[in-house]
């Protein structure tokens, strides 16, 4: 317990707590981190911001010894260190609070904090001393945790504080938090920020991963922005504005050209009126969204991930209850219907988490193309399946959607990400629905398949389908959408025409600045 918090740092010679140089990490052909340099000064709160898949967590896992970099070097407190495993990282004064907590629900707070490094007296666990130490630390950093309480009875917010206590007790001087606010209420987030400030006040260092602009602006001293595995910039927070930050996160690179299109004026297919929904924490995630999608129209929803897009898609597909409002699809209110009834009413859905929602990875392509139509002729007659017809249809879909597979009996898990997505599209686009709900269609898909998927979406538009396209990629929306709605914090901030997708305006709205407040 020589390096308990508050005692002088072990190596106080360097002003830098962490220096990462040219870190590269590949997973197969995918480059998660591409030559990233990162310098974190001692005593600062350093935010690392970027969208999902930008490489934040990979980088932190490398720093903490959970992953080994393919290239690059790590200096901790000025000394070059090989962080072989988390034990080495902890020894060097690092501590990490993961997104998913690892606590024993049946044990007390203090027992959890000291698990694996119990204070012993005459060979027995000294519970009194553990409780005492936990209480002291909790008080010192304003964590408000009762060390005698059983963990199973506590809220997620308190569990996070226990994880922080665990890190402190193990002597961490530099604390890494991976998306700490994702599980917290706004009130709990504010309290967490207080605690983080008290850490730096005692000379400790905080590295804070997030994709929420607001909190980064509020709490950090320095921001590093990652995008697609590369570092965009490291800047003092005070020199940055929110929309600058958004632009750095989202980027300006345009990989798609705007698709030519005929003007189509169909009637309204989907009408959403003042729709509200709560997220898994029971907090409002969609707050009064209203919009219309017409036949032959692609309406895009832009926004930084986590601003209510997922919940909106789940409500429209019946997977999440609406807390208020209406969503009319061809005269039926979706908020009153089950997922099966919504499909019956005319929904096709390409889900954002395709591996979990979109397919059964272990089942064959044929079985995957059957979902949602297993009660319909000609695939089923009198409740009996005609596998010959199903396999024949799957074979035809493999051909027409150019799915690279040996046959319809192949299990989906043998296909590449792009081809799995094509299986989902093939199933959903051929079920005769008038309304297509498409969520992140090209995430994690190679360029060739992206083009093919965009072609298919445009074909559906030409066929007169009403399409709601949710994407975090602005260039994708600019290429496909007739109108782009920008979502921030559960609200639709405004609308931009697709052929006039002014990135600055969209960026402002994505950062939460309402266009009405700006001088025109």
């Amino acid at each position: 317990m020589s390096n308990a918090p508050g005692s002088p740092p072990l190596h106080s010679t360097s002003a830098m707590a962490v220096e990462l140089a040219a870190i590269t990490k590949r997973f197969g052909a995918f480059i998660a981190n591409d030559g990233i340099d990162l310098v974190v000064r001692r005593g600062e709160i350093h935010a690392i911001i970027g969208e999902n898949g930008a490489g934040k967590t990979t980088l932190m896992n490398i720093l903490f010894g959970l992953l080994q970099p393919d290239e690059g070097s790590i200096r901790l407190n000025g000394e070059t260190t090989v962080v072989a495993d988390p034990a080495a990282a902890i020894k060097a004064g690092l501590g990490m609070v993961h997104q998913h907590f690892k606590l024993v629900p049946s044990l007390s707070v203090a027992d959890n904090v000291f698990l694996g490094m119990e204070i012993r007296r005459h060979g027995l666990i000294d519970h009194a001393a553990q409780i005492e130490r936990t209480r002291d630390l909790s008080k010192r950093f304003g964590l408000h945790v009762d060390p005698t309480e059983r963990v199973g009875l506590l809220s997620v917010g308190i569990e996070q504080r226990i994880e922080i206590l665990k890190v402190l007790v193990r002597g961490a001087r530099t604390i890494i938090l991976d998306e700490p606010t994702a599980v917290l209420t706004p009130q709990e987030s504010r309290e967490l920020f207080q605690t983080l400030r008290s850490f730096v006040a005692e000379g400790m260092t905080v590295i804070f991963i997030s994709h929420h602009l607001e909190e980064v602006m509020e709490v950090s001293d320095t921001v590093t922005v990652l995008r697609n595995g590369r570092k965009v910039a490291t800047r003092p927070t005070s020199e940055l504005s929110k929309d600058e930050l958004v632009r750095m996160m989202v980027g300006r690179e345009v990989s798609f050209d705007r698709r030519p299109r005929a003007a189509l004026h169909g009637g309204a297919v989907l009408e959403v009126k003042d729709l509200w929904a709560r997220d898994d924490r029971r907090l409002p995630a969609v707050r009064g969204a209203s919009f219309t999608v017409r036949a032959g129209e692609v309406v895009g929803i832009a926004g930084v991930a986590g601003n209510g897009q997922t919940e909106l898609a789940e409500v429209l597909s019946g997977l999440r209850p609406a807390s208020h409002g209406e969503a009319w699809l061809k005269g039926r209110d979706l908020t009153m219907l089950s997922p099966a009834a919504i499909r019956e009413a005319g929904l096709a859905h390409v889900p954002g988490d395709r591996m979990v929602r979109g397919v059964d990875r272990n089942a064959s392509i044929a079985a995957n193309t059957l979902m949602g139509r297993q009660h319909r002729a000609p695939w089923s007659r009198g409740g009996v399946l005609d596998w010959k017809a199903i396999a024949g249809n799957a074979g035809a879909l493999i051909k027409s959607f150019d799915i690279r597979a040996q046959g319809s009996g192949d299990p989906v898990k043998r296909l590449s990400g792009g081809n799995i997505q094509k299986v989902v599209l093939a199933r959903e686009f051929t079920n005769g629905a008038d309304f297509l709900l498409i969520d992140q269609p090209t995430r994690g898909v190679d360029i060739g398949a992206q083009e093919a998927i965009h072609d298919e979406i445009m074909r559906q538009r030409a066929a007169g389908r009403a399409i709601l396209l949710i994407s975090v990629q602005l260039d994708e929306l600019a290429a496909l959408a007739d109108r782009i709605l920008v979502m921030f914090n559960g609200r639709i901030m405004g609308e931009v025409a697709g052929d006039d997708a002014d990135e600055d305006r969209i960026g402002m709205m994505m950062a939460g600045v309402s266009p009405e407040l700006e001088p025109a």
Partner: protein
Amino acid sequence: MMNDRLRAFSGQIIAIGVALLLGAIIILMVGESPVRVLMTLLRGAFGDQEKIAGTLLQTTPILICGVAACIGLRGGMFNVGIEGQLFLGGFAAAWVGFSFSLPPGIHTLAALALAIAAGAAWVAIPAYFRARYNTNEVVSTILSNYIAVLLTSYFTIFLFKRPGGWSETPPILATAYLPEIFSFSRLNWGLAIGLLLAVGVALVFRYTSWGYGVTMVGSAPKFAEYGGVNVKRQGFVVLLLSGAVGGLAGGVETLGVHHRFMEGFAPGFGFDGLIAALLANGSPVATIVTALFFGALRSGSLLLEVDTSASREIITVIQALIILSVSAQVLIKRRGDSQAGERRWKF
């Protein structure tokens, strides 16, 4: 395709191999020859036509219970309460058998029908709590076993005890018997029921729209929900059907073998069935083979104490080893799976 299937069962075969190897070591440790024990087991299980019939007689309830477990597993539900459903089904069939006087055939069918209803009703309680409050069905079905076994004992001893007899009900009328197949054995048409059921259930899962939905609930619940399958309702239905078949197993045992209900009338068949189903990877047809394996172990063990110095309990040890190695194998597989973001069976 064939390769996939082989790969799916290779883990099971390895698990049995490891268990038998460990069993051999234990047999060596008690000073007996594993080869002699194995030969005795084989002779006891398949030595002559009576022994084969005896093995099939033991196989029947394990097979029906195994099919019950398969139905649950297919829909992602772990029905560990088959033992209890078997006891209640056995009692219900006996009650119809000795309380009513009906024409032959109809009497048997009526008794089996009530056995099925009793099994389904008994699992309906944990199934309801699972669907309504997401209570873990493993825990609630395990606990319901104890209640079922003791409840049937209570019925037998305090309400329907045969005067002057053991802890058993009066015998059922001959009109309710499941007829025997051969004159030399108690082996009865229950075996045919089991075989038909195994094949029938496999066909239903493979070739019906309902079976497709249930299979998807078991293997990819979020995908099934997304596709419009009512995951909670199907979980409830699957548990109910599993319990119904568990009750049927008890009815068959009562009407075919014992012709009365008695305390501890069919110990462990429910659990053996569950293990047989797990060993068969949840496939009802493969359960025919694994149930035969457990049936042979049971009937072969009868000769063990006569012909070798090994105790009959060695069979229980081997069974326990198989359970351990199969569950270890399931766990290892699940760990591999969950890294890919999915769970096949949940505890």
